[in-house]
């Protein structure tokens, strides 16, 4: 899923400082799963903003709602009759949400309430880790199921660098050296020689290096199948 962190209340309060009627729009997709931008979090944010504004003596009217997803126009269109009632909409979706909203409602203002961080999963309750960099050319099977693109600080493809020490990456003491784990796994499974294979150059054009990407499924473009 896409993982995000909520922005500080200070930052969000700054965004809506001159507004007195806003909508806080949650998303029932990834950000609900990572407990940052679902309906519950939208209501908590609304209450927090109201408390702050009441304290200042500048009341604010806030409605909350959560769309099924903010990355699909069919759901984004569900606020077409109400969006004009608000001076601004604070989106709690990942970075996709405020953009789909801005594209569908160009005359309205949308603010992001979260910082979108990475594609990952929960390794324990409350802790999420990055697992995928969306490079567009997946080769996880070549590395024992562990992605060096996303999980090596340098995205190295042929082994660890000199900064690997006792299984820890030099970038941060809490970051495992994924190459250390890849080599160990290959040794344990008796496939160490796999890593000696010369691999073709990775085509980085499918990653961000090739500019904004697009995925087209012709059969779906033509209609439902």
């Amino acid at each position, binding site marked *: 899923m896409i993982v995000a962190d909520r922005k500080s209340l200070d930052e969000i309060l700054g965004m809506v400082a001159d507004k007195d009627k806003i909508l806080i729009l949650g998303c029932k997709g990834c950000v609900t799963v990572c407990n940052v931008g679902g309906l519950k979090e939208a*209501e*908590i944010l609304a209450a*927090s903003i109201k*408390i702050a504004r*009441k304290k200042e003596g500048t009341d604010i009217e806030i409605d909350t709602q959560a769309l099924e997803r903010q990355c699909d126009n069919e759901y984004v269109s569900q606020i077409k009759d109400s969006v004009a009632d608000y001076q601004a909409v604070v989106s709690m979706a990942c970075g996709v949400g405020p953009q789909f909203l801005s594209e569908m409602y160009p005359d309205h203002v949308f603010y992001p309430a979260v910082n979108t961080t990475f594609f990952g999963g929960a390794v324990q309750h409350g802790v999420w880790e990055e697992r995928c960099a969306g490079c567009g050319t997946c080769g996880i099977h070549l590395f024992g199921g562990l992605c060096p693109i996303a999980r090596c600080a340098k995205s190295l493809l042929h082994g660890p660098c000199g900064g690997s020490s006792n299984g820890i990456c030099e970038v941060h003491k809490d970051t495992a050296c994924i190459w250390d784990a890849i080599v160990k796994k290959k040794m344990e499974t008796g496939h160490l020689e796999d890593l000696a294979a010369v691999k073709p150059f990775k085509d980085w054009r499918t990653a961000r290096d090739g500019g904004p990407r697009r995925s087209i499924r012709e059969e779906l473009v033509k209609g439902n199948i």
Partner: protein
Amino acid sequence: MRLSYPADVKIIQVPCTGRVDIIHLLNALEDGADGVYVAGCLEGECHYLEGNYKARRKVEYVKKTLKELGIEPERVQMYNLSSAQGARFAEIANEMVQHITDLGPTPVR
């Protein structure tokens, strides 16, 4: 026991403090409560195993939020006592009311 506690305390009964949510605490403060406290069972003695631990974490979250908003986090508290501790209940109510009186009225009006 005929124990008395301050009339300033408005009691909202829940089946377990695990039912109390962050939004309930925030809504109380938003609506002008000078302080809110959650009275849960003794730690380790929750009939539903961990409702009171969950409540404590929620109280901590609200304290953090209040701090971010420049409001005294002490306006929200968690207490643990058993249903047999009537005297302690009255004592906590007095303690909390005194604490909030010392802090003064809420800046959220």
